C-alpha cells in the first residue's frame, strides 16, 4: 500500500515528469504516444531527433506552452493541468528558454530585452539594468546594449536571447536548436556557456540535430523515436 502511494506521489528530485503522455494534434498517428520521461534536477541532456520528430513540441510542453491530450505532466512537482494561467506564469519564471527563432522584441533594445524577465517579476529598474548589463558583458555584447534586434546579426541576437533566458537564474534552461544558425566553433562555445550554467546548478536541455556536437560532450542524449523518448546514457554521473 505504502509503495503504491509513493509511486503516485511526485518525486521532488525530478524536475519534469511525464507519464503516459499522448499528443496527437488531432492526427490519427500521435506525435507522442503514451510517452514517459523524467528529467532530474541538475542534469544536462541533449534532445536529439531528426527534423519534424517533435523536439520543439516536446520543449513547448516542457515550458508549459503546450498541454498534452492525455497523460500527466508534472513540472517542479506540480501537475500543470491543476494550474491556473497565473500559476503557470509563476512556474515559467523558473524556466529559461532559448528559442530557435530567438523571439526578441524588436522595439526593445538588447538591454531591455535581456532585463525583461526581471521587469515582469517587478524587479527594480536599477537592479535589472545592472544584471542585464553584466550578462551582456558575459555574452560579449556589452557595446551593443543599446542596439535593437533588427540592427544585430543572427549570432548577436542569439546571444541576447541566451542572456535573457539566464537572467532569472533558471532552475531549468531549455534551448531549441541554439546551434542551428552558427558555425561549429560558435556552437561549441555556446555549449560551454551552458556548461557554466549547469555547473552553477541549473538543469539544461538542449535540442539539436547535430550529432557531432552532442558526441563532443559527456552528457546524456534523449532520442525521440516513434512517439517515445529513449534516453542514451553516456555517463552515470548524469
Amino acid at each position: 500500500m505504502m509503495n503504491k502511494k509513493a509511486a503516485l506521489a511526485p518525486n521532488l528530485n525530478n524536475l519534469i515528469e511525464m507519464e503516459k503522455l499522448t499528443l496527437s494534434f488531432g492526427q490519427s498517428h500521435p506525435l507522442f504516444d503514451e510517452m514517459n520521461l523524467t528529467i532530474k534536477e541538475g542534469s544536462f541532456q541533449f534532445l536529439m531527433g531528426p527534423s519534424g520528430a517533435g523536439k520543439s513540441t516536446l520543449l513547448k510542453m516542457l515550458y508549459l506552452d503546450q498541454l498534452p491530450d492525455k497523460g500527466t505532466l508534472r513540472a517542479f512537482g506540480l501537475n500543470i493541468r491543476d494550474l491556473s494561467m497565473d500559476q503557470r506564469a509563476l512556474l515559467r519564471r523558473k524556466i529559461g528558454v532559448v528559442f530557435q527563432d530567438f523571439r526578441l522584441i524588436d522595439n526593445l533594445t538588447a538591454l531591455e530585452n535581456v532585463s525583461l524577465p526581471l521587469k515582469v517579476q517587478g524587479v527594480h529598474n536599477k537592479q535589472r539594468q545592472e544584471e542585464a548589463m553584466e550578462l551582456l558583458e558575459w555574452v560579449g555584447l556589452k557595446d551593443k546594449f543599446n542596439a535593437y534586434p533588427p540592427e544585430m546579426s543572427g549570432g548577436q541576437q542569439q546571444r541576447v536571447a541566451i542572456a535573457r533566458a539566464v537572467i532569472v537564474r533558471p532552475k531549468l534552461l531549455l534551448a531549441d536548436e541554439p546551434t542551428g544558425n552558427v558555425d561549429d566553433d560558435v556552437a561549441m562555445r555556446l555549449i560551454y556557456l551552458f556548461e557554466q550554467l549547469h555547473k552553477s546548478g541549473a538543469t539544461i536541455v538542449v535540442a539539436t540535430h547535430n550529432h557531432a556536437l552532442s558526441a563532443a560532450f559527456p552528457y546524456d542524449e534523449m532520442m525521440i523515436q516513434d512517439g517515445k523518448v529513449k534516453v542514451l546514457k553516456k555517463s552515470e554521473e548524469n
Partner: protein
Amino acid sequence: MAHASLDLPLWQDPASRSAPWLISLLIYVATIVFLIALTIHSLIDRWDRDTSHKLTIEIPPMTQSFDHLAAPFTEDMAAKVSQKLRDFPGIKSFRTANQAEIIKTLEPWFGDAEQIKDLPLSKLIYVQLEPGRSFDVIQLQKQLNHIYPAINVEDHFNWKTGIFNMAYAVQIISFLIVVLIFVAVIAMISYMTRTSLIIHRHIIDILHLIGAKNQYIAWQYQSHSFKLALRGTFLGVILVAITLLVFDNIMNQFDFPLITKALSSWDIWAITLIIPALVVVLMAYSAKVTALKMLRRYNF
C-alpha cells in the same frame, strides 16, 4: 522615452494615432452638452428661488375695450386692495412697483424705455408670501375682483411649470448624450484593445513565456489608454475653454447677466472638469478590463 515603460509598441498602432483627436472631440461635445444642462439647471434654480413664494398683482390700465371698466382705479380702491392684502392670511409683505421697475420689466419686449413711458402701463404689486404656509390664490383673486374686476393675480405657476418641463427635457436629453458618449468611449477603447491584442499577439506570447501574468499585460494597455486619454482630454478641455470664453464674451456684450453669472461660478467649472476626468478613468479601466477578458477567454 515617453513609452519607456511599455514592452508592447502600442503607440505604433494606427488607432493610437487618431484616438486622441477622437477623444478630444467626444470630450468637447460631452462637456459642452453637460455645461448646457448645468447652466440651464443653475438658471432655473436661481429663477425658481427668485419667484418662489411670490405673487404679482396686476391692475391693468383702463382701456376702451373694457366698457365695464369705465370707472378708473381710484385711490380708495388702492387703499382697499392694500387693506385686503394686509388682512389676507399667508401674505408676509407687499409693495407697489414704481414706474422705473415696470419699464425695466417691459423693456425686453417693447424696447426703448422712452417709448414705453408713453404706453398705458399696468400697476404692479409685488407680494411676498410666508414660506411653508399654504396660500389660496383663487380666494385672493375673488376678493380683489370684488374691489376692482380687472385685477389679475399672477402666481407664475402655469408658465413656470411649462418652462420647468422644457428645462428638465433638455437636461434629460443632455444626460443621455453624455451617457452615449461614455458608451462610445468604452466601445472605442474596447475595439482598440481587442485589435491591438491581435496585432501584438507574438509579443504577448513572448511575455507569457518569460513569466508575465495577464495583469502585467493588461497594465500595459491600461497605462497606454491613460496616456491617450490625457492627451485627448487636454485638447478637449482647451477647446471647451476657448468656446466658453468666446460665449462668455458674447453674453457680456449682449448683457445676459444671469447666463454670465452662471458661467462664471466656480462650481460649474469644477463640475465641468468631471467629464474629462471620468473619460480618463473610464478609458484606462475599459482597456484593462477588455485586455484581461480577452487574455483569459482566448487563452492568449
